[in-house]
């Protein structure tokens, strides 16, 4: 892989060399084996994890992946059933604060030595690192990153509106939407209407208005911050977004709008980086759209972090332990992260991977640059809508309020703020 920096490659090599860590030393002689549970079964997700499995096999391992198709809930049901049966997988997909929650119900493996050997902690965003080492010990490893508040602009809609500037603040965004509407773009916003989509609209709004309030209100659940005027302003912004959407989208996935988005009948979309892959796989071209960081009122990019990760469960079998070690090394390896992100359209967790190579898109480069800037200005925050900021129970309770607000135009921002505080209290 030519796209990796020298330092990254060295770090990866160091990880592979750290084969003598005591916890894993017994695993030396056996053939590494790994049992994995994930929900990644189809499309680019399925292709990416399959490619990872191939690498695992190339290193002499036995790859036993059980994809649990469907929604995250079914995957967790499967994990729960395995844990209750005393047979957890060696490694399973899990993300955000759920890592800490689940690590309390069954023993997990400790990856500290492997992480230290690979020098991984230095190249991971601090907020992200924290999620994967609850109680101070690394038990899970992040694999790839998306930002949930990227702004997708339709080139044709921009042409129609005779606009050429990418909006930076919410005021710019609103002006552009009005401009598009005046120019005949019937629905300036092309988002969908699913629960996470409604959550995304709101978190993009509040984080763009004030990342500080977002952090206090939605990451730390500060009761005062939840009632802050910024939260009310975010609800008002979401109402604007909702009014610019096609009312027919209801529970539809955003991908049903892509055709109209590219054709310029719809103008903008607040989506995660994954939408790029979806657009390309639907037969549309990179020239059809622009990807930029989502609106931020202070002008510096705000990055709503969404990271997929693997948690490692404690297993006594020597071959599984060897498999866990190999897997951990692979997941931290810059070459593997490059391969993975290039398939899925995400960006690597490692901040030291060079994205200038041909395998990366402008959107990915911009996302990576946004992450770097956001980390520098302390504006990289954890996504609520994608279960990174809170445990699932709290997230779902908040999203109930958000999705109801988006769908019911008779709820005022003031009422929404009141409902939000109630929901948070009820779920605490």
């Amino acid at each position, binding site marked *: 892989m030519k796209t990796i920096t020298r330092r990254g490659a060295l770090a990866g090599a160091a990880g592979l060399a750290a084969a003598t860590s005591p916890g894993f030393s017994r695993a030396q002689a056996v053939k590494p084996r790994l049992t994995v549970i*994930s929900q*990644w*079964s*189809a*499309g*680019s*997700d*399925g*292709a990416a*994890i*399959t490619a990872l*499995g191939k690498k695992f096999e190339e290193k002499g391992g036995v*790859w*036993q*992946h*059980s*994809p*649990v*198709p*469907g*929604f995250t809930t*079914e995957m967790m*049901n*499967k994990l*729960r*059933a*395995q844990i*209750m*049966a*005393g*047979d957890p997988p060696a490694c399973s997909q899990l993300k955000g604060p759920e890592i800490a929650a689940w690590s309390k119900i069954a023993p997990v493996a400790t990856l500290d030595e492997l992480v230290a050997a690979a020098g991984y902690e230095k190249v991971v965003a601090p907020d992200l690192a924290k999620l994967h080492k609850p109680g101070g010990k690394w038990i899970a490893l992040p694999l790839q990153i998306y930002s949930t508040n990227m702004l997708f602009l339709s080139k044709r809609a921009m042409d129609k509106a005779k606009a050429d500037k990418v909006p930076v603040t919410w005021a710019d965004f609103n002006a552009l939407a009005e401009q598009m509407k005046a120019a005949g773009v019937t629905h300036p916003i092309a988002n969908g209407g699913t629960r996470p989509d409604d959550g995304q609209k709101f978190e993009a709004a509040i984080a763009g208005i004030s990342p500080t309030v977002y952090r206090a209100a939605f990451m730390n659940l500060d009761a005062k911050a939840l009632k802050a005027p910024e939260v009310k302003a975010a609800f008002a912004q979401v109402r604007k977004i909702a009014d610019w959407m096609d009312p027919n989208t209801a529970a539809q*996935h955003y*991908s*049903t709008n*892509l*055709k109209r988005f590219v054709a310029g009948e719809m103008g903008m979309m607040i989506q*995660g980086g*994954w939408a790029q*892959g*979806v657009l390309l*796989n*639907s*037969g549309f071209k990179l020239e059809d759209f622009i990807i930029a960081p989502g609106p931020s009122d202070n002008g510096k990019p705000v990055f709503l972090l969404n990271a997929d990760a693997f948690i490692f469960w404690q297993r006594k079998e020597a071959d599984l332990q060897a498999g866990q070690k190999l897997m951990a090394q692979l997941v931290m390896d810059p070459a593997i992260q490059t391969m993975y992100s290039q398939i*899925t359209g995400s960006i690597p967790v490692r901040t030291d991977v060079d994205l200038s190579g041909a395998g990366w898109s402008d959107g990915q480069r911009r996302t990576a640059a946004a992450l770097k800037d956001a980390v520098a200005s302390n504006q990289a925050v954890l996504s609520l809508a994608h279960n990174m900021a809170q445990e699932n129970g709290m997230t779902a309770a908040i999203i109930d309020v958000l999705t109801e607000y988006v769908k019911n135009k008779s709820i005022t921002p003031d009422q929404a703020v009141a409902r939000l505080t109630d929901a948070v209290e009820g779920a605490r």
Partner: protein
Amino acid sequence: MHRGAFTPGRAFVYAVVCLIAAAYLLPFAVVALNSLRTAEEIAQTSMIGWPQSWAFGNYAIAWDKFCVAQTCSGIQPYMANSALVTIPATIISTLLGAVAGYAVSLWRFPGDRWIYGIITIGIFLPQQMRLLPWTIVLRETALTNTLTGLVLIHTIQGLSFTTLFCRNYYVAIPQELMRAARIDGAGFFRIFWRIVLPLSPPILIVTVIWQFTHIWNEFLYGVTFTTGQQQPVTAALISLTAAVADVPQHGVQSAAVMIAALPTLLVYLFGGRYFVRGLTAGAVK
């Protein structure tokens, strides 16, 4: 009410029936048409429409090509898994239900009403609620991640319906027949074998159809209690539909849905006649 006599009234009846039939066929038609359209065509035009070019290739992909993660074998092996669970569970739960229904309806014993009442409640319990208890049962019986475990679950859960159906049917068997048989010295098994079972085909067909479709279409247990290559066909279908971060493959997905629905559709197509006949013969009393 004579067949063939064509009156305005009958024309009206035909018109109404055909209209309703068309409405009933509509959802199926949409899926069937989409199964012959390419994903691009659906994405670029609309979800509902006539195929511009007939994409029969969707069926080939659905049958043995599309990938569920690293396994690119299409829907075909999952069909076999579903059959391996559905067929034994249907047969066993039907037979046990027949015996239980026979016992409850024709052999009075203490507590029979209570047991029957509890079993009736069983049909009302949502299966989501039983997921964790079953997890514990499978752990205790060491049947987690086996098709046998799924057969066990579906057999026991199916007992509620099969017992109910059979009991309601057997209640109609005249008591004189039973009395006469008992005077002749016939016991529990002999009466079941000689008298009850020969009368049973209509209701057994009803329970078989019912069980077969329910078990075949079940998703939650199938996906939770199996692993990797043992998953039932509904799990493979979901892997095609629920790829949230990806382009919906509506064409292949619809083709896979058509293939997966084929066994149950055939069961209804060929069994439908007996279904009504079986119900007519007494199950409704």
